[in-house]
């Protein structure tokens, strides 16, 4: 079964994608993303391809429903696997900046291409790294979902930022960037175009956000020099993560760009990247448990300013 169902109690859409259950949870066979594996027979550089087990599909089955209480719709969209490199033993922290720059370009192209599908409303690009966040493959890759609706947390971001704009006449994140540069204590890394920081409102210990200093609503609007500086920023942040506890650091990395096929948020929505790491210490995990899942309220056991100090202190070779 593949459809999306409306939760009348929360206003959320839930995707029912029954065959995701058959997905191998711990594949023991050789890597499908390496040449000679299940997906590639020839060498490649980077590739973004349709997931074998998509939760959203362009040709999703038609859904007929006129039930007011239990509304459902087609799960029309796209799920892609975004492969960063042919090198199996790599990671964003190990890849050359040049390769990350190519990745950013690929992200920009995916965002633009998927935005030409009129039913796509949101393009969500992300990476789960490490078994602790459910990544089943070590080969460096991320994913993307092209949603036919605006997911709930995105909606919350749009609403909050639009409200701030109405009250102050300018973008909230532009103001945050100004404040953080002035204040400095939460900044982990900074270059001409980006800041990486542990935000004032961090939900996770060691949470890091990457903000462009200039107002842009998507990676597409970054010029080539800025894309280069973003690659550098991503490289530095992930290196700091790995060096913090001297281990491959598990995280969820998520790109928040403005909705597609809807330019109403261009002025109010500021593109940013969130790293949500699950480690609270070298051997301790912060789980998404009842409070976080049930109420969306987070209790952060780490003072953000302290986390920033630790991450800032980690030396990386630039």
């Amino acid at each position: 079964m593949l459809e999306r169902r409306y939760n009348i109690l929360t206003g959320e859409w839930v995707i029912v994608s029954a065959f995701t259950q058959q997905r191998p949870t711990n594949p023991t066979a050789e890597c499908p993303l390496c040449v000679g594996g299940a997906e590639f027979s020839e060498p490649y550089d980077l590739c973004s391809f349709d997931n074998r087990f998509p939760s959203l599909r362009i040709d999703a089955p038609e859904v007929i429903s006129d039930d007011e209480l239990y509304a459902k719709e087609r799960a029309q969209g796209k799920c892609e696997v975004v492969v960063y490199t042919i090198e199996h033993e790599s990671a964003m922290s190990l890849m050359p900046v040049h390769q990350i720059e190519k990745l950013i370009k690929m992200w920009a192209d995916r965002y633009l291409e998927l935005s030409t599908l009129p039913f796509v409303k949101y393009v969500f690009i992300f990476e789960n790294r490490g078994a602790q966040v459910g990544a089943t493959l070590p080969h460096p890759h991320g994913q993307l979902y092209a949603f036919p609706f605006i997911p709930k947390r995105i909606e919350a971001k749009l609403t909050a930022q639009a409200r701030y704009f109405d009250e102050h006449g300018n973008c909230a994140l532009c103001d945050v960037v100004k404040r953080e540069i002035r204040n400095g204590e939460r900044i982990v890394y900074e270059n001409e175009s980006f800041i990486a920081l542990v935000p004032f409102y961090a939900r996770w210990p060691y949470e890091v956000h990457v903000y462009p200093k200039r107002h842009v609503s998507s990676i597409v609007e970054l010029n080539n020099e800025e894309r280069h500086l973003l690659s550098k920023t991503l490289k530095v942040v992930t290196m700091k993560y790995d060096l913090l506890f001297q281990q491959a650091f598990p995280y969820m990395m998520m790109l928040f760009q403005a909705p597609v096929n809807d330019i109403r948020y261009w002025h109010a929505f500021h593109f940013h990247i969130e790293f949500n790491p699950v480690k609270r210490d070298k051997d301790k995990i912060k789980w998404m448990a009842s409070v976080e899942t049930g109420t969306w309220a987070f209790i952060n056991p780490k003072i953000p300013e302290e986390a920033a100090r630790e991450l800032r202190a980690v030396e990386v070779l630039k």
Partner: protein
Amino acid sequence: MSTFFANINELNEFDVFKRAGYRIVEGGEILVRVERIHLGYLFRTFVKGVIQDVVLFEFQRPAEIFVNNWQSWGPARVVGKDFPFSFPIELRKKFGYSASIMPEVYFDNLISDYFMGSDKFLIGALSSRIGHPYLLIDPETVKVKLNLFGRHFADWTEVEKFVVLKGEIDWLLPYYADLVAKENGVELKAKNFVGWSSWYQYFLDFDYQKMMADLDKSKCLGYQVFQIDDGWERDIGDWEPNEKFPALTRIASDIRSYGYVPGIWLAPFSVSETSSISKNHSDWLVKDENGNPKVAYQNWNKNIYALDTTNPEAKEWLRTLFLNLKDAGFGYFKIDFLFAGAIQGKRHDNCTPVEAYIQGLKIIREAVGDSFVLGCGAPLWPSIGFVDGMRIGADTAPFWDPNGPDIGYPNAYYALRNVFTRWFMNGVLWWNDPDCLLLRCEDTQLNDSQRQLYAFTSLLLDNILVQSDNLSYKIDHDLWKRIMTIRSYGKRMVNLKGLMDGQYEITSAGVDGVHKLLVKDLKIPTFRIELDEERVKLVKKIEKRSDGRTFNYYEEREKLE
């Protein structure tokens, strides 16, 4: 109580409700409800009874304002208080209905159709489906008006919504366009294409031999559409090939054999006095008070009448016309002089001219299915949702004349001015057609910089790109190659700054980077193009696997070479 607001920026929902909320007008009643929305207010209007041309509210006029004409060709421009509005008297009879849906008001007043802006605010209608929303502007005040042309509403009916938005005009415009798109349920399925058209080279002096000669020379230029323009038909209204062309199926299959979508021009709501419809079916035409066919405009040295798109027989004729053109093999329709379908007059149905026009467009859209429809000479807001592309300026021309009249007459300068001022409609309401690129270096008065500015503006704004040249001439192929290279990267995200002061600054973001175009003075023109050089070149290859999945490969170019 007065519906006047001294300062539009201090407008609030309570005052509006108190002062404009409910009114009895001549013939009926009006109710205006106001809601707060992001960046401003939404005005919802409900009417009952027989409603003419009503004022919803009025406010104090700012000095410099951005005003818009209702139609493709009409000016969208910034005017000050000393703006001398003039439309040559001798042209009023010939082209009065082209200039306005309400020529009786237009020639003696400053009017902005659908929306108007100032540096810090924008007011606009979200649709024109029943009435004609507009702003009536005098030196001191702006009246927000909705013309319902005396239509009768038996019950309370919601009519056109307006928004008042506060902020910088340059980003309010795209925001407003998206509100309009959402209100009209626009889903842009078609893509902005690249093509060729016969008009700006041959005008009416076009024939089958010329078409074949240019088809032969067109290989490798990257066209997707090849469109024959005016000159192929027997008469305006008799949409059959004249002696200069073979059968339509032949024309279409010849074009298709070169790999292009065959495109054809016609003026479906226009009927010349000499056509067989005028002779045999005068009941299909829009009439004046005395029951005589009304002259919509004069062109081709003829009186042109308007098709009554509410007349059942005329509707059937219109449907058949497009079904046949589609059957003949055409997949692209440039439908022109559409304003004729929206002139005031007597029709079969008792409806507003806007409703009549929409009935006509709906028939065309249904008949051609997914084929590309380009509106031209078209009322803008009533066409939303029915056309894939829209001409948004005057006809271009092989000359550049900043001193010519700004009344929608052919002129590359004014054509391009509108390409800037109506940029925000592109990719949201439809694909903007900036009109053709004339890239020939002979048989033209355009110089290199005018040619380059026109091409790069159209490209960087991500508009439709159509060339109109005799391909046997010396063509600026280098320019075409440069713009086609950038076009090959696909969709762009665009914004424009400087609308109010005319120093336009385009920012055009794509996979290849963020290019800029800065216009210092459009009249000369003086401008600068800043192309963002790529640090990494990626080649994209798309592979369709046998299991139906798509693989998008990205490979660094250096490695391939």
